[in-house]
């Protein structure tokens, strides 16, 4: 295909020829093209189908506001839907496909929807297709959903990488058009730390699309020179292809930098970077967006915004038509005629809604004042215009200008409320702007080039003064004069055909009228009822038009009608960029235990608990099911000795003269009486009287304790204790350090645990039962002088110890323990066996400490000291937490030993109906006990301690099972604790 619409000039590199594909057809363009300008160069008018009616649509704009020309870019897993062709930078090998049609783009079978439009108007889903009722879910909705819509996802994992970054500056300038460049020059020359960000790949903004002069140069040349000067400044960071998409509190901005989207192959670099920018001050120089006028069939391919038409001619050296007409309500629209004529292009007619003298003399062009376009013809490309004067005009491109709307979006992201500027017929920033933000240029209603340059320059100088930086003695750049008169004109009332307001959502003037008649008059209702201003373009070209038409219908002014405001993001942000590197296994960080390498060597299965990876079980040859491994590990531990990495339990080192008194206040039970060299089980309550956590605390010295917490609550318990220390008792002499990662800790459990340790503990330390009884602790050395801490505590119910060494010895320690226990066939066990043994022993864990249970529920009510205040003591005595028949933790065994129990099953007395009213509690934990050879459970049931031997129903409605279970002691193994003390 040849570039039939390529003309001379433009800011493209004709030595850099690119080949690309659109709908599998190979075409050519140049470096500096966008996909849109390259499509125009190749004479492509029809680029997509509309959202609802599948109307043929073409390119309407030359920027981020594009509502029509959305394509699927790239192929396979790299496919990105809904990419605006107007901002997609062309590269060699680019592949794009049009969206939302069945069959070829030129013959879309879904276009039949266009003839069903009477049934698909605003709010149709609330009113039509309602009968028969069952049809909506099964038939109407699927059909409508399949026919509506945009592009499609690849369905594969995104193969690209994304990054996040943080930047700091004195002044963030958003937009590098004339005002942004003028501001950056002023601030950069004065030495401020500046970030200048622009969404385009070339800085200069509208200067690159227009023929204005600045400082007696072509505007685009001035921009190039200014940009080059800024790139030389070390204090200025220049960010092209970067959209500042959101304004947040305290001068923080979000920005998306597209790093490799313009390359065929990103070579492993991050595709995009999501920046968080911390600014002292910001200057919004985001420019303005042209809007259309609503008239009959104003959505045909070839009908475009006037500024875009001359923009394609001036910047890209392509013309959207060979016989262009213009329809305008303002002077700026006439610039399109002037610029096109200057390129020798044929301008057929300029139609101006205003009854004023012709503002510009355009030779060889029909100029029609006080006239309107009422309809157009040409389904796949406009070819005829019908005017209100009765004339018809032959054309292949209609450039429409309804005036320019300042890009106030970022001013609204907090509390800004734009105000209506009647003279310029546009909303300008108003209300309370984000902290530190000022606005300059067209974004602030400075609609002429000179006023934009001056506002940027002066705005930057004012900011410099507020920052205490002396501005340099320069004046604003000088520009050519222009006029920007406008008389507001929104829609052509005499049009009989549908007149489109929001092209992306297929909203017409009739839809707005209907919304008004049905009572959806406020702008927010209008938006929701008609979908005006929704989807990827967020109504950049449609909102003001729709609002003005609503104002007309209601007979109110635009001020009275109000405006919708904007939320981040300004333009769409890919989900991948928001996720950054936090995907897959990197979704959140996790830690490895000191024995991880050892466990990996033994093919352990791992489980994530409290941001740790822990060994879950250690399979050996011949084992095919986790239960085989788990059962073996339990038996081996109970019969001889097992070892388990318990490093993950939180460890808090507590020191200070008031350490014991502090513990008495944070624990429900007493610690002041604990002897040095002893360990005690501790129960911690929340202030509301509910159990927060439990663990053991060892008294290493008079003023030194080491507390353990559960793995899951290590962080929150430490946070709570710091709260108590700093906020409640600030004058206590106590200090806390989290030592969880400093010590590698192993449980050594089983009848041969002492003998195992005696092979490892240095001989001067006597750990016999007499010298080191149950609940003893002490500092020892192992393996010839390595410092260690030994605690005689047991979670399994066996004779057991926990031994801790500095983490750097952790890997050696597990191997040394394996060696020391070799003669007793020492067996490493994982969290599954750990869980089974604690259930067999009746110890509460996370399933029981679930945030609703009290000490009394867990059978630990006696531990809450009545003699002292502690966190949770007062409210634990509340009536509501102390009913006559409280839930009590007991054990459960199935009457039929072959049946497996389910955690979460609810208890109902035998013979009673299974319903909420008869609910008496629930099963908290279950396990298969290889010691009892049956399924066992722990659970909370009303008055459980007084119901030993009773058979109740454990109901699990999810599995539709009702199992008879017997209430038994929670201590299935060694209920008297004899094994602990031998």
């Amino acid at each position, binding site marked *: 295909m040849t570039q039939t619409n390529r003309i001379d000039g433009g800011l493209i590199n004709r030595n850099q020829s690119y080949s690309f594909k659109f709908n599998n057809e190979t075409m050519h363009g140049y470096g500096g093209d966008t996909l849109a300008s390259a499509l125009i160069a190749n004479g492509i008018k029809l680029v997509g189908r509309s959202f609802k009616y599948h109307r043929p649509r073409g390119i309407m704009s030359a920027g981020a506001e594009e509502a029509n020309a959305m394509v699927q870019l790239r192929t396979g897993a790299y496919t990105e839907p809904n990419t605006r062709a107007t901002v997609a930078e062309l590269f060699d090998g680019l592949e794009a496909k049009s969206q939302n049609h069945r069959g070829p783009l030129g013959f879309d079978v879904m276009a039949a929807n266009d003839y069903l439009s009477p049934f698909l108007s605003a709010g149709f889903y609330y009113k039509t297709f309602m009968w028969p009722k069952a049809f909506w879910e099964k038939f109407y909705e699927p059909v409508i959903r399949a026919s509506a819509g945009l592009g499609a996802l690849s369905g594969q994992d995104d193969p690209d990488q994304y990054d996040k970054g943080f930047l700091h500056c004195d002044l963030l300038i958003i937009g590098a058009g004339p005002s942004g460049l003028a501001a950056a020059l002023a601030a950069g020359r004065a030495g401020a730390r500046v970030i200048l960000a622009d969404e385009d790949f070339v800085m200069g903004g509208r200067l690159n699309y227009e023929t204005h002069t600045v400082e007696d140069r072509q505007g685009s040349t001035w921009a190039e020179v200014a940009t080059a000067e800024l790139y030389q400044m070390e204090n200025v960071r220049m960010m092209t292809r970067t959209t500042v998409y959101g304004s947040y509190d305290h001068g923080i901005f979000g920005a998306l930098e597209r790093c490799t989207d313009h390359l065929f192959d990103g070579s492993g670099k991050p595709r995009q970077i999501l920046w968080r920018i911390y600014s002292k001050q910001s200057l919004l120089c985001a420019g303005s967006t042209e809007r259309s006028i609503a008239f009959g069939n104003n959505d045909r391919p070839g009908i475009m915004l006037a500024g875009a038409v001359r923009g394609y001619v001036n910047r890209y050296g392509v013309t959207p038509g060979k016989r262009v007409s213009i329809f305008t309500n303002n002077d700026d629209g006439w610039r399109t005629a002037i610029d096109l004529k200057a390129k020798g292009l044929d301008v057929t007619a300029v139609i101006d809604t205003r009854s004023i003298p012709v503002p510009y003399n355009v030779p060889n062009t029909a100029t029609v004042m006080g006239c309107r376009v009422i309809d157009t013809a040409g389904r796949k490309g406009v070819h005829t215009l019908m005017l209100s004067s009765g004339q018809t005009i032959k054309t292949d491109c209609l450039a429409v200008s309804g005036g320019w709307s300042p890009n106030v979006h970022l001013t609204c992201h907090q509390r800004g409320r734009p105000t209506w500027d009647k003279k310029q017929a546009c909303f300008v920033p108003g209300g309370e702007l984000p902290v530190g933000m000022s606005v300059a240029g067209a974004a602030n209603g400075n609609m002429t080039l000179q006023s934009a340059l001056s506002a940027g320059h002066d705005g930057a100088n004012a900011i410099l003064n507020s920052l205490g930086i002396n501005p340099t003695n320069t004046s604003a750049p000088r520009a050519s004069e222009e006029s920007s008169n406008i008389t507001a004109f929104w829609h052509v009332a005499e049009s009989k055909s549908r007149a489109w307001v929001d092209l992306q959502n297929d909203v017409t003037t009739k839809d707005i009228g209907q919304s008004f008649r049905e009572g959806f008059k406020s702008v927010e209702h209008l938006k929701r009822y008609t979908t005006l201003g929704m989807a990827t373009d967020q109504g950049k070209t449609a909102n003001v038009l729709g609002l003005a038409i609503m104002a007309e219908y209601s007979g109110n002014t635009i001020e009275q009608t109000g405006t919708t405001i904007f939320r981040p993001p300004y333009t769409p942000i890919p989900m991948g960029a928001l996720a950054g590197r936090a995907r897959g296994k990197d979704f959140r960080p996790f830690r490895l235990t000191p024995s991880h390498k050892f466990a990996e060597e033994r093919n352990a299965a791992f489980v994530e608990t409290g941001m740790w990876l822990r060994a879950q079980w250690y399979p050996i040859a011949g084992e095919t099911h986790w239960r085989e491994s788990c059962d073996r590990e339990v038996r081996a531990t109970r019969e001889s000795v097992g070892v388990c990495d318990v490093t993950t339990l939180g460890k808090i080192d507590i020191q200070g003269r008031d350490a014991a008194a502090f513990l008495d206040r944070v624990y429900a039970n007493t610690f002041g009486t604990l002897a040095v060299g002893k360990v005690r089980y501790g129960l911690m309550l929340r202030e509301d009287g509910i159990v927060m956590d439990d663990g053991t605390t060892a008294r290493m010295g008079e003023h030194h304790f080491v507390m353990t917490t559960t793995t899951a609550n290590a962080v929150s318990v430490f946070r709570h204790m710091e*709260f108590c220390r*700093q906020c*409640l008792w600030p004058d206590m002499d106590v200090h806390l350090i989290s030592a969880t990662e400093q010590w590698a800790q192993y449980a050594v459990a089983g009848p041969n645990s002492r003998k195992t340790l005696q092979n490892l503990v240095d001989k001067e330390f006597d750990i016999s039962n007499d010298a080191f009884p149950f609940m003893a602790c002490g500092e020892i050395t192992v393996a010839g002088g390595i410092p260690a801490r030994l605690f005689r505590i047991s979670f399994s119910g066996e004779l057991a110890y926990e031994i801790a060494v500095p983490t750097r010895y952790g890997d050696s320690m597990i191997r040394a323990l394996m060696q020391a226990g070799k003669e007793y066939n020492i067996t490493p066990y994982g969290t599954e066996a750990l869980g089974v043994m604690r259930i067999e022993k009746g110890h509460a864990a996370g399933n029981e400490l679930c945030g609703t249970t009290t000490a009394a529920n867990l059978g630990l009510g006696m531990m809450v000291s009545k003699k002292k205040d502690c966190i949770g003591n007062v*409210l634990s005595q509340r009536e509501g937490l102390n009913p006559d028949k409280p839930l009590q933790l007991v054990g459960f065994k199935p009457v039929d030993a072959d049946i497996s129990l389910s955690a979460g099953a609810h208890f109902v007395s035998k013979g009673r109906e299974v319903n909420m009213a008869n609910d008496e509690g629930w099963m908290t934990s279950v396990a298969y006990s290889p010691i009892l050879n049956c399924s066992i459970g722990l659970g909370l049931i009303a008055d459980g301690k007084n119901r030993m031997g009773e058979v109740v129903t454990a109901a699990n409605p999810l599995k539709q099972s009702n199992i008879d279970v017997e209430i038994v002691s929670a201590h299935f193994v060694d209920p008297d604790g004899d094994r602990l003390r031998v």
Partner: protein
Amino acid sequence: MKKVKVLNQICIELHHMIINHPLLGPRDAAEFVYLGDASLINRPDASGDNAAQTFYQYLYLRDNPAGEHKELWYHEQGDRSWLVVTRNTLTHEISNVEMARDVARAAGGST
């Protein structure tokens, strides 16, 4: 001022704000964990006659001001200081940041 009931001390993370830490200078709010109303510093006397009532009020009843609010933030990803931050709930403007320990001492915090 109307009192509202709060369910519990819920810790939430807020982003995109800057807290000017008295010791460490400006830090991103993402480094902090939020607790709630700074009145939690004023734990009642458990030996008082109507301790149950005062503890109920302490734990469950909060002011819900539209405007300046003193609240507790914990620098968990930093130096583990608890801070009292005075934040305007309408604008998010932070007008004062103090060490919670100093506030507690000034309020006669017990030892």
